[in-house]
């Protein structure tokens, strides 16, 4: 359960990512999920090609690019299959609350977009359609095994993997120049150590008064991205058998103190915490923050907001005992309450055809999850020069973190971070003992 190290990866290497996602993750997640038992039915009834009718609603959040891509694919679906798809857009931080309430009110959308970290939280309540009967036997083989397994609950598919993404560091080149930092790591193995990273932030602080040197992207539903830091420090969230919290360790304490230190030393934007929807990517274009940890899916919106104001680039996440990045990305699921289940299932399948997944990924700068796209060279619409860093960084998702991220109790683990980390980071008097105790107790309640 060591974090994944990628040595000598000095060129864009999808193979690393493929090898990682295909082998280690698949094995890990399969073990984690198969423990719950349940076999898919072999003789499933498969919906065949044919004209469909009516309308289905896809509820999602998304950037302008993501919504435009969904709309375009929905229009193609209408042309090819006859059914309309209404794309309903919600603010990201309202998505889960609204979908939950609709499920509660028996008025759920036909399909909705859901993160891999949230999907099994829904699956365990039985609100998602089990897709076994509606998929060809070889359907699953089209996807990276790790992400396919993330969309299975108790051995049965409950969604289709749509894309993946991860975090890296975006930096303001002019702020770096002012600080005399002329080079950033250009390979994974050269990624800054925590000490080097801290030195960079100190220089940025001195050279750019009025701006915060850095901000993490671990707000609200993305709070789990703090686990990047935990795993970089050699810690893990849970014990080896995933049955108990494992945060009362020297590694976890060091990761916590490293993070808190960035706040107390004035190296992290003080108001960018965990509980509030103050997202670093919204502030970075104002030049009030010199460097942010951010997801590849935000490249188009960052590029548009920054425009010609300043030059910016991306580099790798820092490393300590090892390297680590979060499992990002989303699946699409069909609800049991869907009024037009057949068309909804067919649209979910349509979204993840080779052509449509490629189109979506290219337009929205996210990473594909189909085997036949893994080694394809995608024509990313925004800043294609930045994507190799994210592709490389994606190879550093630790197996144990991915297995943790897809547990049915993970939404509650994420909530434990929101409740405990905000206090710890905002109050210099907060002790590591208290946050370890708070996190341990909350996470064990969630399991």
């Amino acid at each position, binding site marked *: 359960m060591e974090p994944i190290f990628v040595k000598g990866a000095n060129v864009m290497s999808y193979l690393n990512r493929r090898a990682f996602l295909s082998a280690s993750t698949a094995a890990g997640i399969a073990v984690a999920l198969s423990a719950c038992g349940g076999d898919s039915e072999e003789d499933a009834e498969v919906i065949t090609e044919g004209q469909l009718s009516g309308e289905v609603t896809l509820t999602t959040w998304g950037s302008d690019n993501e919504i435009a891509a969904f709309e375009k694919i929905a229009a193609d679906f209408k042309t090819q299959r006859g059914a309309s798809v209404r794309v309903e857009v919600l603010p990201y931080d309202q998505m*889960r*609350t609204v979908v*939950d*309430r609709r*499920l*509660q009110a028996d008025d759920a959308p036909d399909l909705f977009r859901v993160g891999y970290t949230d999907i099994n*939280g829904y699956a365990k*309540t*039985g*609100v998602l359609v089990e897709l076994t009967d509606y998929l060809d036997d070889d359907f699953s083989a089209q996807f990276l095994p790790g992400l396919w397994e993330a969309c299975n609950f108790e051995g049965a598919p409950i969604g289709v993997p749509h894309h993946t993404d991860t975090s890296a560091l975006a930096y303001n080149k002019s702020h770096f120049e002012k600080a005399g930092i002329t080079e950033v790591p250009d390979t994974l193995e050269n990624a800054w150590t925590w000490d080097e990273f801290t030195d960079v932030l100190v220089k940025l602080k001195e050279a750019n008064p*009025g701006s*915060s040197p850095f901000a993490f992207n671990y707000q609200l539903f993305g709070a789990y991205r703090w686990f990047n830091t935990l795993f970089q420090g050699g810690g893990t969230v849970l014990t080896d058998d995933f049955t108990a919290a494992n945060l009362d360790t020297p590694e976890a304490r060091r990761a916590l103190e490293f993070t808190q230190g960035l706040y107390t030393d004035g190296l992290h*934007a*003080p*108001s960018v*915490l*965990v*509980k*509030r*929807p*103050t997202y670093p990517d919204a*502030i970075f274009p*104002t030049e*009030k*923050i010199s460097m942010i940890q951010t997801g590849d899916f935000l490249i188009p919106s960052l590029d548009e907001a920054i425009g010609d104001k300043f030059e910016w680039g991306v580099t790798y996440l820092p490393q300590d005992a090892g390297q680590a990045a979060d499992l990002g990305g989303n699946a699409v699921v069909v609800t049991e309450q869907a009024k037009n289940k057949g068309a909804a299932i067919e649209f979910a399948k349509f979204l993840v055809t080779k052509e449509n997944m490629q189109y979506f990924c290219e337009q929205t700068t996210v990473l594909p999850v189909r085997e036949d796209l893994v080694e394809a060279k995608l024509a990313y619409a925004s800043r294609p020069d930045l994507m190799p860093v994210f592709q490389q960084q994606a190879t550093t998702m630790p197996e144990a973190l991915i297995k943790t991220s897809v547990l049915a109790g993970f*939404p*509650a683990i994420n*909530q434990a971070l*929101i*409740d405990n980390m*905000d*206090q*710890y*980071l*905002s*109050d210099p008097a*907060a002790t590591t003992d208290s946050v370890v105790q708070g996190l341990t107790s909350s996470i064990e309640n969630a399991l």
Partner: protein
Amino acid sequence: MTKAAKVERWAGLVLASPALLVFTVFMFVPLVLTFWYSLNSYSGFGDLEFVGLENYTTIVSDSTFWRAAINTVVFTAVTVPMGIALGLGAALLVNRWMPGRGLFRGLFYVPVVISGVASGVIFLRLFDPLVGILNQLANSLGLPSVDWQGDERAAMVSIIVVSTWQSIGFGMVVYLAALQGIPREVYEAGTVDGAVGWKRLRHITWPLVAPTTFFLVVYAIIQSFQVFDSVYVLTRGGPGNATTFLVQYAYEEGFNQRRQGYAAAIGVIIYVVVLIFTVLQWRLSRTRDEV
């Protein structure tokens, strides 16, 4: 019962039925359901699991609940007197003739009709620590920035400012009605006896608006216990739990933690507290009327 009495009885029922229907659907049924949910473990969808009083016993040892309760009491203790004092001040200001009196009355009342979320968004533009107007203004004057969302006290102050701003208008309107009900002769007699300026306010106006003050205090306490929307927009209860209030905490538990049974138990507790104040107000105001 005479025929006329029967007709009157039916007419009463028919006329009251729309209100009864609305109260039943939106008040009585949710109240009963909330109490029922509070006795269950319930995620919002899926099955309910009856747990008896477990949610209530958990609350007793829940430090976040007590922090939220203390925050709510502190918030109430600060905002209620401030709202009363500023409401009375505004009423005294616009009660006398002055240029643009109607405009000022309208301006003081505008925050009451703006939704809490909209108010929160407006103040977010002011209080945002990095790009907010207040800190940019402070920096341009050479003053240090205030971390309105990362500092516990500053965050609480920002919530208190918004809530007070929202409440002044209502207090003003109610006090204005009370002030206009004070007979001119009382002031004239007072003036003869030397009660002018501050003495007039202390010895004539303040005692004569006391029933209004009492109503406003109880009303403001009830409102303070229900503060939510501006908190949700401005701080989300943070940093940490520094601005977590009871309703905000119930929302977090019910909708983010998917613990609707627990949230319902918090809701029942808030209901009981508010009910006590309401009964208190009702009984005391009835006593006053009888006197």
